């Protein structure tokens, strides 16, 4: 079986920063596994500017931020990158199985860093009554389809949830010529950054309904309308406040949840509610020598912080390999 000092799972900003820092700290034999055919992770679909102000003192788009690290990774001799490599199994003694086109590979690592990112919370995780027509998408999936595949989801959209992804998608759809009717947020405040409310909604005249919720989604095959209602402090519907918005597309942007199936599989402790590793310090897990960084460790708002903390994860792994702690 293939043996490696360090295996990093996930080639987004977290995995790349961790691998680079481990390499810089003297780890000679690093395997970076990424299921996609490119490095960069979620940044590849984040084509808007807003990345790197701290790290590079200039505002980059997601792909540009990623590219700076991809270039470093590819010229670092101690890092071997394996793309289209989907890790399907991890054991507590750090044996990893991954699928590559046409093969199931196994590798024994001395240390593992999990940088598998987040997945989106979906409609199934927040109850919205009504029919189940097509035209309802998680916002991040829509982002990927629009920005990377050139797909336009429909003509008129309503966005549920005011997280940054939802706000950024409101602007993207408006630019793509769709009519974005509203962003509906159950909280009293936007969950996204104030700058995104300004430049993604106000710039395009898109209304943000705070303390409102979607009472129903209606439509036979395709979404036809949503019913919106105001809520009180306990998030209960205020009677007599219902109104309708016709639309053929609903994006759900209700947050991200760390992707930690592998960690669970290995027997590490994972918090049931937040899906984050249980450990005393950021980047650590309950298994010695196994680390988790980036969005897999906790949900980050800024990629610059992901890079900073993930570099520490790389250094921690290097220290573990040297000193066994």
């Amino acid at each position, binding site marked *: 079986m293939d043996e490696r000092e360090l295996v990093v799972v996930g080639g987004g900003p977290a995995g790349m920063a961790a691998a680079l820092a481990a390499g810089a700290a003297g780890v000679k034999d690093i395997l970076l596994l990424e299921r996609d*055919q*490119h490095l960069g992770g979620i940044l590849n679909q984040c*084509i808007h500017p807003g990345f790197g102000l701290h790290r590079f003192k200039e505002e980059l*788009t997601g792909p540009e931020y990623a590219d700076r690290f991809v270039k470093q990774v590819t010229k670092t001799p101690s890092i071997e990158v394996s793309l289209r490599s989907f890790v399907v199994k991890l054991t507590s003694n750090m044996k990893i199985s991954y699928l590559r086109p046409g093969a199931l590979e196994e590798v024994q690592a001395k240390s593992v860093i999990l940088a598998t990112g987040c997945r989106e919370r979906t409609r199934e995780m927040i109850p919205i009554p009504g029919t189940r027509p097509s035209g309802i998408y998680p916002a991040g999936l829509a982002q990927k389809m629009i*920005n990377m595949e050139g797909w336009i989801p429909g003509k008129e959209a309503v966005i549920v949830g005011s997280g940054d992804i939802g706000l950024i998608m409101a602007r993207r759809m408006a630019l*793509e010529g769709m009519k974005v009717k509203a962003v509906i947020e159950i909280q009293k405040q936007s969950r996204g950054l*104030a700058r995104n409310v300004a430049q993604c909604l106000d710039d395009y005249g898109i209304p943000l309904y705070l303390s409102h919720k979607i009472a129903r989604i209606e439509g036979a095959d395709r979404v036809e309308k949503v019913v919106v209602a105001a809520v009180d402090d306990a998030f209960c519907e205020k009677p007599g406040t219902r109104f309708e918005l016709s639309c053929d597309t609903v994006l759900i942007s209700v947050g991200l949840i760390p992707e930690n199936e592998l960690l669970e599989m290995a027997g590490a402790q994972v918090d049931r509610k937040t899906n984050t590793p249980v450990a005393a310090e950021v980047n650590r897990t309950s298994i010695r020598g196994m680390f988790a960084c980036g969005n897999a460790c906790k949900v980050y708002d800024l990629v610059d912080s992901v890079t900073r903390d993930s570099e520490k994860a790389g250094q921690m792994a290097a220290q573990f390999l040297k000193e066994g702690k």
Partner: protein
Amino acid sequence: MSRKLICIECPQGCSLEVALEGNKVVSVTGNTCPRGDKYARSEIENPVRTFTSSVLAEELDIKMLPVRTSGPIPKAGLLPAMREVKKILVSAPVETGAVLAENFMGTGVNLVACRPANKPPME
């Protein structure tokens, strides 16, 4: 007269208050750093935004190539810019920063690639 703005120059999103005399900015308050002052003046006098989108690629290892303007363009130019980039088809490999349209729509800034695109890998 005064106008309230949110500074969009960094994630802090400071609330700015701009004192105006007619259309002229007299003073800016609420900003944490000088960029906020600059933003407020520009936002009142000539609002600009960095334009980003993605353009169609063919026979390359990605379907769409993310692009941006190398500097901000007038806000009113964003929707016309969208129509313009829909006409672009990239079919040869590019590096990050490669210029796809010089002096894009007469704005004085270029439209550039945000990532490399290469020939697809041989199967």
